């Protein structure tokens, strides 16, 4: 048993109370500890990545109770990938946040660590009630982070965010209850074994539970019509928080991939590919609505938020195709869109903070500091987000389009993916040319010295680092896709996962 697995959860879980205890009144210490924890987290994730690349899925039985009775954590290629992504993102965005955002309210770093804990837990757990618990952890931490710094609009949006998610949590419990009531288990691997053998008469309950669960994950993944929470939340959340939230939507996507391939996939008998007929059409609508939102956005925050919805649509198309090839493509797009969305929120913040009066509104304003570098950042991101060559967004879309060939909906997928790219391009071109080219008001004066928390070098550098990561992800697309295709292949062999959890070798090693 890989003893390190649990530390992906424990490290932030212990660091957070330490931050509360020791560094509550000392922001410098809090920053040092928090960054150190995130760095350690990233190192750990790298270790997992290496380990998962060469080994079959690994299981960690908490409390030494065998599955399906105790809770297990499972590290396979997919979860290792997600952990690495979350580790890298949380570290980079945290560096941005310590440029000043973290000091605008209390307990930022503790909440940050808890948020990371929840995310990592959701990626590792092999038990779907435990998944509920980690969902709640990441959600409640996100509530705190979302309203960090306060303000009328932010708190108002925060209330809506919380209420929608509480409804989601309610549904989660109902779905878990329904599945447990007929399958009699909470362990995902065990469920995968039980689903095919379930009595025919119980299938209505099982399927209903499973698809309600899809809606729960759909809420997280901003799947239309469950996406309503996202625009207000992302557009109003503090920038580093919105950037970190980029991985939260992926928790929803990850859960869909995990559960509906493992337990409701090819071997699920009468419940095989249960999610497919629902997910794909919804994903297409999500894509359209998201990219239309990019075109219709009135502020940078909205632009970024809707681009997240659009990208989730694209990602879920790949997921909804439920094929190995499409999943490989989708995973590439997942990594890309997470990094791109995060950077976009940071750039939006850097710009808004410098446009003192106009903020993030998409209208002409006076010249502002650093507009040269920021326009370059914005341009690169626009390319990435819209899926224009040469960046990873293009490659991701190309991979997805390529993988959609065998789908019955291929014409829809191709025309909508490409058509919405145009909406995105036009939207970003309008936004960028208005923000960076149009000048209105006092233009020649240098902007007055301002107390923006995103001033200084660190935010610029950390944003640049994410962009650099995107570029590297493009350059090394070859090896990346090979790795991701292998990952998809592993996901599509549930036997490996099940053996790891329930196999003879797994119990009480």
């Amino acid at each position: 048993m890989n003893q390190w697995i649990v530390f992906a959860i424990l490290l932030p879980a212990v660091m957070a109370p330490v931050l509360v205890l020791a560094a509550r009144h000392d922001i410098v210490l809090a920053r040092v500890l928090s960054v150190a924890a995130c760095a350690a987290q990233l190192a750990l994730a790298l270790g997992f990545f290496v380990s998962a690349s060469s080994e079959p899925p690994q299981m960690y039985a908490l409390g030494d109770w065998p599955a399906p009775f105790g809770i297990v954590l499972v590290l396979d290629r997919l979860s290792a990938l997600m952990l690495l992504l979350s580790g890298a993102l949380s570290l980079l965005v945290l560096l941005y946040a310590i440029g000043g955002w973290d000091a605008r309210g209390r307990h930022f770093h503790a909440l940050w660590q808890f948020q990371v804990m929840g995310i990592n837990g959701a990626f590792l757990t092999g038990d779907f009630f435990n998944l509920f618990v980690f969902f709640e952890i990441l959600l409640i931490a996100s509530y705190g982070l979302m309203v960090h710094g306060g303000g009328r609009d932010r708190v108002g949006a925060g209330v809506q965010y919380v209420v929608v998610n509480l409804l989601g949590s309610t549904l989660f419990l109902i779905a878990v209850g329904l599945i447990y009531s007929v399958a009699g288990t909470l362990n995902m691997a065990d469920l995968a074994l039980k689903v095919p053998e379930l009595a025919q008469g119980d299938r209505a309950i099982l399927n209903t539970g499973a698809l309600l669960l899809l809606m729960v994950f759909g809420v997280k993944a901003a799947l239309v019509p469950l996406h309503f929470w996202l625009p207000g939340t992302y557009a109003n959340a503090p920038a580093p928080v919105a950037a970190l939230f980029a991985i939260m939507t992926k928790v929803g996507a990850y859960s869909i991939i995990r559960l509906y391939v493992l337990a409701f996939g090819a071997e699920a008998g009468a419940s095989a590919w249960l999610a497919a007929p629902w997910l794909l059409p919804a994903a297409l609508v999500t894509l359209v609505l998201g990219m239309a939102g990019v075109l219709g956005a009135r502020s940078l925050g909205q632009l970024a938020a809707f681009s997240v919805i659009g990208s989730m649509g694209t990602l879920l198309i790949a997921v909804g195709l439920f094929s190995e090839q499409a999943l490989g493509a989708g995973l590439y797009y997942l990594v890309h869109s997470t990094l791109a969305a995060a950077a976009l929120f940071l750039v939006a913040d850097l710009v808004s903070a410098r446009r003192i009066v106009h903020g993030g509104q998409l209208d002409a304003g006076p010249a502002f500091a650093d507009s040269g570098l920021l326009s370059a950042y914005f341009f690169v991101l626009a390319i990435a987000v819209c899926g224009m060559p040469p960046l990873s967004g293009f490659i991701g879309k190309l991979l997805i389009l390529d993988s959609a060939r065998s789908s019955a909906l291929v014409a829809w997928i191709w025309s909508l993916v490409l058509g919405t790219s145009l909406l995105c391009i036009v939207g970003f071109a309008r936004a960028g040319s208005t923000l960076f080219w149009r000048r209105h008001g006092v233009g020649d004066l240098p902007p007055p010295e301002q107390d923006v928390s995103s001033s200084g070098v660190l935010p610029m550098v950390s944003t640049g680092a994410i962009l650099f990561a995107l570029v590297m992800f493009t350059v090394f697309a070859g090896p990346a896709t090979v790795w991701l295709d292998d990952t998809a292949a592993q996901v599509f062999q549930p036997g490996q996962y099940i053996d790891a959890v329930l196999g003879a070798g797994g119990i009480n090693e």
Partner: protein
Amino acid sequence: MEFLLASAIGGLTTAGVYLLLRARTFSVVLGLALLSYATNVFLFAMGRLVTNAPPVISTLATDYTDPLPQALVLTAIVISFGMTAVVVVMALRSYLESDSDHIDGNGLAQAGEPGSVVLPVEVSEGGR
């Protein structure tokens, strides 16, 4: 008994959803509270119903109910307690920030747009 419980769950859900769809944060919080009752009882009912067979091991007991749903419900109760607390305080903060406890914001205008009207700070007058 099963029918009573099922219909009770239905009643709680109905009242909860109705309140959830009201326009004020307070009603919404009440609705969520009812929904969480409904959910907890629902989850509990997934262990099927037995009376006087608590899952406490003893030599006298002849039968035990399924303990797992109970443990899950306990966790769910605690979590929804925490959530309720947060949403109540957040709703309060929101009310104090905007002087309105209407759950609907200004739509996307919340993103700090020119269109969003900033209401003058008003002071609610006491009834004394």
